[in-house]
């Protein structure tokens, strides 16, 4: 197996008596799309929150590129290359789409104690922002106030913001939730196009998308990993079929 970019070991997070994640271990390989699937309440979002640093783990360790980030706060992890999209769309609603992405470029650039120059006139922020919008299919929509974008466009915008920080790993929490079939197809194409350049941890309910995109799949049930393997192996796994896929079949 190739070297892992992200290594999580025995991650646990309890809410009272409920273990949202229970000794979860996970390796995300450089450039791969690693899908995490599981029924509602399985702990997928909690796992993403633990990895991104929004929620502190009760136990376990997380390494990114060999570096221990278990105790790093969310913004430090972002600076080390973890970018994230939220299950519930999270953008700067009052900013234009281009402002949203320019903010991400600025975050990556790392110099924000600047008080004089007009940020909206800085080519170093605006040009990468426009390019990234183009890349996710939002070229020409840059001037629209984010909250006025269609739902699917806002999800694309979130991907653009994540990409603009030039991450090594994207943590995507149900990027296709609430999308129509056309929008979902476009998102699949977009994510597929990123394969090999950036690693992606993809939480997604849309099984067609998962099996089309993923190099590796982890199945989570009640906070526990029940199986990890190639899409074909997961599809064939009797335990998985019973525990999860069985519901759909």
């Amino acid at each position, binding site marked *: 197996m190739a070297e892992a970019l992200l290594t999580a070991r025995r991650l646990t997070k309890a809410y009272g008596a409920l273990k949202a994640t229970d000794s979860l271990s996970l390796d995300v390989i450089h450039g791969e799309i690693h899908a995490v699937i599981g029924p509602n309440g399985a702990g997928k979002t909690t796992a993403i929150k633990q990895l991104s640093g929004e929620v502190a783990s009760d136990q376990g360790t997380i390494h990114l590129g060999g570096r221990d980030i278990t105790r790093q706060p969310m913004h430090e992890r972002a600076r080390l290359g973890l970018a994230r999209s939220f299950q519930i769309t999270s953008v700067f609603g009052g900013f234009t789409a281009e402002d949203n992405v320019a903010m991400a470029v600025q*975050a990556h650039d790392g110099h924000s104690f600047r008080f004089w120059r007009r940020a909206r006139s800085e080519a170093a922020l605006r040009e990468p922002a426009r390019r990234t919008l183009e890349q996710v299919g939002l070229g020409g929509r840059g001037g629209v106030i984010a909250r006025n974008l269609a739902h699917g466009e806002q999800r694309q915008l979130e991907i653009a913001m994540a990409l603009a920080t030039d991450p090594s790993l994207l943590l995507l929490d149900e990027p296709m939730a609430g999308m129509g079939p056309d929008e979902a197809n476009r998102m699949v194409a977009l994510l597929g196009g990123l394969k090999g350049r950036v690693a992606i941890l993809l939480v997604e309910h849309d099984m067609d998308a998962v099996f089309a995109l993923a190099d590796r799949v982890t199945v989570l049930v009640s906070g526990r990993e029940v199986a990890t393997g190639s899409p074909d192996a997961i599809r064939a796994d009797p335990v998985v079929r019973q525990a999860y896929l069985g519901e759909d079949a």
Partner: protein
Amino acid sequence: MSDASRTTAVSRAPAEGKAGRLETGWRAALLTCVAAALLVLPPAAEALDEAFLIGLFTRIFIFALAAVSLDLILGFGGMVSFGHSAYFGAGAYVVGILSFHAAGGEAPAWPFSLPWMESAVAAWPLAVAAAALLALLVGAVSLRTSGMYFIMITLAFAQMLYYFFVSLEVYGGDDGLSIAGKNNLPGLDLENEASFYYLCLLILVVFLLIGRRLVHSRFGMVLQGCKENEQRMLALGFPVYRYKLAAFVMAGAVAGLAGALMANYMGFVSPGLMHWTVSGEIMVMVILGGMGTLAGPVIGAFVLLLLEEILSAYMEHWMIVLGPVMVLVVLFARRGIWGWFQRGDPDG
């Protein structure tokens, strides 16, 4: 349409391009009229035997300065600080205490009671520094909380300072301190009402111009991002706390300058300057005029203090009128008076 104007309109908000341009012209005209009126006000007021207007407008400028500084964190940064009077009062007390010692008061000798303490060149920067330091301490603690807790903690710190000065008998306790005369400024006689008026106006204008650069700079964008969606800022990798604290200190520093001017204007300082009702009044100015704009708090200060001046002549409880006015503003002009005028252009 020229190419240049097209580019500007598009880079702002294409949907509102036309209206935005029209209003830009309208705004320039309004601004010119206001500036002209304010410049001729002192001689005009004296000629008409209404010299009290000079003092009234000086007070408006000073409060406007404090209100704009609050809006920097409240309107742009989304930090609902309910203790802004603390920095205002701290700045005022620095001027008061220095002049008390300079006039040969009772407390410690060296290095006090030197002529420099009556000089604005020394006293005002000290007032600014003291207020900034106070804001640094309060902000460092308060900014670890958010929402209701943040409001309560900033309020609590201000009230602590208020009671501290009430109990500080050396400096007059409840009664406060009288100031012998205004600070000295080389080349300008601050005892002259009109000179002091122009100085306060100049300081306000300079701060508005600086503020205009600031809110559109990278730092300003971060500040606005924190207000829009702090979680997102963290997820993007911004050490949000640091930026918010920096803004909090700047706002405190400017409020401290406003306080130093206020001490000079009133000729005395008292703990009343730090009372929570003063924080409330400054906040009302911001909300009334329009949060998240620079012009808004200035308009709010004008409207509130003029209302107070006019209404208090007729009735003791003029605040009764203010309540309904606030309700109307919040109901019909969410972004305040200025927001209602400019409809959606955030560049004010």
